[in-house]
């Protein structure tokens, strides 16, 4: 019995690569695929609304944005003649949103300042919870509250405003009817967008570089002096961005506005008068009895609203990001 020597083999060196294993490739593939879902969904929304609304865009042309009539009439030959124009609704949306910003921005900035620099720990915790909670309230709750609780109060405020400032065009009214006005819808919206603006402002304020804060104090500044000289200039961009995010939310708000606004297809700048417009609310108002022709117009209106909010949101996020970066 002789032992045969094992065949001589030269061991090949292990190949070192940075190539991921198969399991990793699959993992990365799946995750990457899913990460594009946001892109896919956003483009599908635009695609389908365009597909369905295309007929209206073709028919109405630029008048879809610049005219304010919205009616379908059938002439003697039985041919339907449709006029769809969003002008009054777009205008109304912008007016309401700016009323909302007028109330919400100062309140939110003050609240954010209070939270960041003044509030004692206990109150701060409570207020932060309350504001987070506000963001989670169902929008229809704001609608109900606005209609049954706020409206009687706001009607009184509107009358006061009209009494003292009625000589200013926007506070004038053609008839003394003050319910369901853009003013009231704006107040309801302002409460709905406070949480967004407050949380963005708070985040930016709290990122104020500490060395600048301490420098201001070291120079003998009071707290308010420090806020005015350091925090507000630093956070201004963030406040603007947060307000724009709020604006985006205000543009798209549907149910709450519908309950507290009288939607009329005519441009109206008298903000205390019971006549206003809102694209989103108009869509659900007309939805119930819409004919196929009108359905297309509603889809087109949805697309206009979608693009509008998308633009505002893009701009807002851009501004916020830029501000936060500038602090480093």
């Amino acid at each position: 019995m002789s032992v045969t020597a094992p065949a001589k083999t030269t061991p090949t060196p292990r190949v070192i690569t940075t190539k991921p294993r198969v399991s990793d490739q699959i993992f990365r593939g799946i995750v990457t695929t899913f990460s594009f879902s946001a892109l896919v969904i956003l483009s599908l929304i635009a695609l389908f609304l365009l597909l369905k609304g295309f007929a209206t865009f073709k028919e109405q042309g630029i008048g879809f944005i610049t005219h304010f009539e919205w009616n379908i009439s059938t002439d003697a030959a039985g041919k339907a003649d449709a006029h769809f124009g969003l002008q009054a609704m777009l205008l109304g949306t912008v007016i309401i949103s700016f009323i909302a910003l007028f109330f919400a921005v100062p309140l939110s900035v003050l609240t954010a300042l209070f939270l960041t620099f003044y509030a004692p720990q206990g109150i701060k915790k409570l207020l932060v919870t309350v504001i987070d909670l506000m963001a989670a309230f169902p929008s229809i709750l704001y609608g109900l509250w606005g209609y049954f609780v706020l409206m009687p109060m706001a009607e009184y405020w509107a009358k006061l405003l009209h009494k003292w400032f009625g000589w200013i065009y926007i506070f004038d009214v053609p008839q003394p009817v003050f319910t369901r006005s853009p003013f009231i819808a704006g107040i309801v919206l302002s409460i709905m967008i406070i949480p967004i603006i407050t949380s963005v402002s708070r985040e930016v304020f709290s990122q104020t570089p500490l060395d600048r804060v301490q420098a201001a104090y070291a120079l003998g500044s009071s707290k308010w002096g420090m806020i005015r000289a350091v925090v507000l200039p630093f956070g201004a961009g963030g406040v603007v961005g947060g307000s724009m995010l709020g604006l985006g939310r205000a543009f798209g708000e549907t149910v709450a506005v519908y309950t507290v606004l009288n939607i009329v297809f005519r441009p109206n700048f008298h903000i205390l008068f019971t006549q206003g417009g809102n694209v989103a609310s108009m869509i659900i108002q007309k939805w119930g009895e819409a004919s196929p022709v009108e359905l297309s117009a509603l889809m087109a209106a949805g697309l206009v609203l979608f693009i509008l909010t998308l633009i505002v949101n893009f701009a807002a996020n851009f501004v916020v990001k830029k501000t936060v970066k500038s602090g480093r």
Partner: protein
Amino acid sequence: MRPWAPSVKDRAMTTLSVALSILTSVIIVAITPMKGKLAYFTIFFIAWFVIDSIMIIRKSGSKGVRDALAAKITFIGGFVVILAVASILWSAISRGFKGINFAFLTQTMREASIFDAIGKGGIAHAIVGTLMLITIAIIISVPMGILTALYLTEIKGRAAGIIQFLVQAMAGVPSVVAGLFIYAAVVLYTPLRSSAFLGGLALTILMVPTVTRTAQEVLNLVPRDLREAGLAMGATQWKTVALVVVPAARSGLITATILGVARIAGETAPLLFTIGAFDSYNFNPVKGDNSAIPAIVWKGLLGGTPESIQRAWSAILVLLVIVLVMFVLARTLGSKAMKK
């Protein structure tokens, strides 16, 4: 000892000035023709400022006055916000509570009309509908949201910046557009008709961004060391993520899901296009009209009779309780996740 902490004397002075201001506002409202909450409010703050300023001038000179004014004005901001929330909560509780009873929670609206008194008919079918909608939305949007978040935190591919941007843009999609889109894409192109499934799809669009952003935040909180330890042990990235990162962030991911649900539970507008309106149970998610609590509130509001408006308030209270419970749940789980 904290030398900057307010002393007993300081506290007494603060209380005194507030008390004096309340007194002043009550007196002035009583003796002048001014009336209403607004008057009390305004006079109180003016009086408070004047009285407090006098005290501050005596204590630390005129320079402190502007500082104190700024502090008070920021306080007013926070106070008004709390006031609004308190008013909303109180109106829902006080008005909704009257209509809550056993029948309201266990019956359906099949036999009841908008003219029937409270006690006949209820929202049990809507609660079932809402649960179905939420389940469908969770099944679709949670994997989508968490995988997107994993891409943004673990893979950090070339497209990360763009995707981050798109997710934020998606958070701004108006709810009415989500409903319109599902109608345009599904009802008009496929044999599917309004059902809980379509409602769930519409809600998914609104839920994905919330889940993604919260999940991203909690995944970012997982220490780098854990990932590096996993890789150093020879694990692949897939194993590291599946066995180390995700378990470490588990409660945070649950929080993300709950916050997403809280976001969509009260959405009304998309449901108007997608689930129809049905007054009884429908346990089939893909076929037949369904109902949901926000839809019931909407219907009750449009019904217009005192009974139907009462039902709307009671239904919103039920919805609010559901949202509140989820909110508290998310908070406790979330704070646990932060502590780890």
